[in-house]
């Protein structure tokens, strides 16, 4: 009798679990160790007492959760109609809307926040000056330095995440389901509410959860707007543990329980989606047509343009002016115009171009790794191929909620020294980005996997294709759009990642976000704005190339 060799797929699962253990569990474990030790290395729980023993620390955590709730809700409200309009309707100006969403995503949050401070600052904010001039009122119209102001600005920076998630899901829904609803007498709106959107529900939820977790862990914008508004968040609190006297062990202890939030949210997602089918892709062919709209499409366009104006065009204009100014404090005038900021960065700066190049390739490598891992993990989890698949899913989701600076401590402890000895290399940054943004890729690909009926894979297997062949030839091509969407999100989020990078960059591996931070620290705002626009131009150019290479499917509806 021939001995049966194990299916190669099994080996892949083992390799995958091992990768996740090294990439995610190992740094998290290092972090846990840090949180349970005194500086001299003895075991202690004192760090947890120090981190949670004070009302104000717990208050800031509550604030963060409320802020994350408002931000993620706003983001979903901004993004969902836009995704639906672009994916399903004949709304005009889709290219423009796409460009604005993309721009909002690429704009470094630090610059976006400054842009909004310049627009909505209570004293000199441009919108408020306009308001006072028009109405003669004394009080400002909007004040960015407030809880809601902060939530709005963060939502403007995060809604593209949900947009890309939801659009990817809607792109997979075939018109037949909507046709069925229409035949049964439902109008366009009713069909959208009852059929189309519910089919995208896992993606909306997945995207919202990702934004929620991102907001909890975000530092830049809360620091710029929250502190002047006198709002303490968990991350601004956390950064104070890094000021003198540095108490990393307390920071770690403060961050570890945040994992519970990820756990609760993932559980909630499961419960909300349980026992319902979201399969929209089956073995039977489908067809997709844009829904023809009359005046309604202009309402949709107005909504999209409104969000685009607020999220990228207005703050962008303010920054554009600064980037061409000799001295932006002097305002708009001919003798204040200069190209020197751009010339300085492109031709004279020692490291700016190398830094841009680092950023692009680290982010691309991390995005590719993360998407590959995420697809395999979500495949195992959704097809329940092994026991404890859920644990793999949690591991893939966990790293996101740990703020970057704390995660970086774990990474440094786990990989900088032997046996890995990755100190100062590109690899440690790529690994950190991969682990940190794996959750985004995972949330996206697991939502997409849920729309896929197994019957197509079964057909391939019946015809003799192995498990891996099936994934490569059936599953992956069907999910191409979702995976590209996930890749794009991870890529962009990685290009703007600061808090983990700041701890891990070596002398020759500086990234764009770190350079922006350095320049902004020096108060060189004109140059910072110019750097932001160079980043924007390069990213838009790459997206254009991507679109050409992969076909319009890359971003535009076919």
């Amino acid at each position, binding site marked *: 009798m021939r001995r049966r060799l194990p299916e190669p797929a099994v080996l892949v699962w083992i390799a995958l679990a091992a990768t996740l253990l090294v990439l995610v569990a190992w740094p998290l474990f290092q972090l846990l160790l840090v949180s349970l030790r005194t500086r001299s290395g003895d075991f202690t729980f004192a760090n947890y007492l120090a981190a949670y023993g004070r009302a104000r620390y717990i208050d800031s955590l509550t604030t963060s959760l409320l802020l994350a709730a408002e931000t993620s809700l706003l983001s979903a409200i901004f993004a969902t109609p836009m995704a639906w309009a672009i994916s399903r309707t004949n709304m005009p100006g889709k290219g423009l809307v796409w460009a604005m969403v993309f721009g909002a995503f690429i704009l470094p949050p630090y610059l976006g926040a400054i842009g909004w401070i310049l627009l909505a600052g209570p*004293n000199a904010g441009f919108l408020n000056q306009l308001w006072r001039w028009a109405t003669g009122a004394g009080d400002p119209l909007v004040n960015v330095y407030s809880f809601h102001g902060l939530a709005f600005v963060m939502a403007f920076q995060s809604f593209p995440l949900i947009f890309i998630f939801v659009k990817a899901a809607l792109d997979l829904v075939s018109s037949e389901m909507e046709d069925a609803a229409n035949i049964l007498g439902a109008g366009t709106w009713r069909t959208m509410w009852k059929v189309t959107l519910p089919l995208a529900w896992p993606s909306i939820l997945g995207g919202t959860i990702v934004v929620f977790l991102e907001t909890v862990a975000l530092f830049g914008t809360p620091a710029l707007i929250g502190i002047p508004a006198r709002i303490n968040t968990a991350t601004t609190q956390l950064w104070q543990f890094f000021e003198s006297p540095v108490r990393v062990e307390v920071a770690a202890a403060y961050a570890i329980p945040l994992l519970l939030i990820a756990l609760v949210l993932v559980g909630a997602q499961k419960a909300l989606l349980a026992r319902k089918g979201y399969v929209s892709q089956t073995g039977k062919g489908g067809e997709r047509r844009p829904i023809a709209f009359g005046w309604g499409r202009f309402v949709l366009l107005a909504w999209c343009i409104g969000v685009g104006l607020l999220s990228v065009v207005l703050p962008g204009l303010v920054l554009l002016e600064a980037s061409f100014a000799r001295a932006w404090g002097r305002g708009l005038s001919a003798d204040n115009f200069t190209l020197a900021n751009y010339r300085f960065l492109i031709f004279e700066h020692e490291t700016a171009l190398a830094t841009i190049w680092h950023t692009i390739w680290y982010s691309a490598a991390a995005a590719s790794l993360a998407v590959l891992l995420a697809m395999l993990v979500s495949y195992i989890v959704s097809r329940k191929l092994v026991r404890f698949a859920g644990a793999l899913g949690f591991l893939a989701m966990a790293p996101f909620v740990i703020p970057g600076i704390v995660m970086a401590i774990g990474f440094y402890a786990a990989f900088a020294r032997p046996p890995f000895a990755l100190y100062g290399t590109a690899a440690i940054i790529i690994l950190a980005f991969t682990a940190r943004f794996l959750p985004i890729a995972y949330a996206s690909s697991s939502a997409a996997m849920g729309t896929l009926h197994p019957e197509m894979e079964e057909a391939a297997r019946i015809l003799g294709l192995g498990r891996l062949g099936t994934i490569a030839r059936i599953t992956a091509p069907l999910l191409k759009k979702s995976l590209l969407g996930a890749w794009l999100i991870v890529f962009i989020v990685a290009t703007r990642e600061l808090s983990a990078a700041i701890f891990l960059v070596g002398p020759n591996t500086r990234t764009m976000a770190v350079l922006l931070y350095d320049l902004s620290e020096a108060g060189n705002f004109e140059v910072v704005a110019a750097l932001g626009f160079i980043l924007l131009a390069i990213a838009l150019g790459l997206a254009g190339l991507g679109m050409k290479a992969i076909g319009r499917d890359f971003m535009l509806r076919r």
Partner: protein
Amino acid sequence: MLYLTKRHLLTAATAYGIAPAAAQDLPANEQALYEAARKEGELTWYSGQVQAETGEAAGKAFTQRYPGIKVNVVRSTSQVAYQRLSQDMQAGVAQCDIFSSTDYGHYNALKREKALLPFRPKAADGLIGPAKDPDPDNMFQILYIGLYLIAYNNKKVAEADAPKSWKDLLHPKWKGQLAVGHPGYSGAIGIMGVTLSRMYGWDFFKSLEKNKPQIGRSADDPVTLMNAGERTVGLGVSLSAPLLSQSRGNPISIVYPSDGTLAVYSPTGIPRNAPHPNAAKLFMEFACGPAYAEIMRQFFIMPVRPEIAPPTGALPFEKVKLIGSTPAQIEDGVPEIKESWRDTFGV
């Protein structure tokens, strides 16, 4: 000067003897170090004191003077630099050859742990008085003195009306006009808190709160707000940021407060386990010398050598009344200041 380019620095550098070492006679002590350092080939500098561009410029100038020795600048905030260093030490990995932080406490801690290498650069003889021989055991040198003062938007505030002292800032006319950093994020603001509350009591800050200052994070955050016109006066701003902004033509002016400009002394030293000790010692010689001070000047940092003039727009040390706190006062005082700050300002 609007932009610092390689050309500018080179012109400046040649004036202070940054020609390759082979072309000139090095002093005997440097010659010996250089020969040993050449075998090491490089050094790694963890710096929280100066910005990345400044550090790179200094590193380039060093390599130019001592060809064959590359400087890897790892720029971060002082606290992150310290955290990296301690993590390296705990893990028994030696990475760092030169450690520069703005926090004196780091050196006290490192000294207690016997983690510093004693070395007295010969060039330290020529440093200015306040920077000379800060440590009896020569574990570190003062190569950076940060000055923190008041700045204002001169388009919105006339020079005659501008505040002249810290005390002036308490006047009700500045209500809603002030901006300041945060002691939880900026070591300098913590030291400002300790120093001003020693001079005027914590009541100074309670009165300041009546003027509703806008609280930022870093000491230099107010500069952005003043350029935008969102606030008109910044306190506890470092000398460098407003001078850089001013040099570009922004409407920013600085005031040396009549009741004293805050001086923060920042050490630089060599870790005991430095992997390139000779290169590190050579770098200390270089950093105590005039060429380094000249580069600092170009980036609007006060040089600590008497023969180098202050940066454009700044006064020399002799003309400025300096205030400050001792390392011990800082170490004891800052944690308490952070608590009081939270109670008074709510953030």
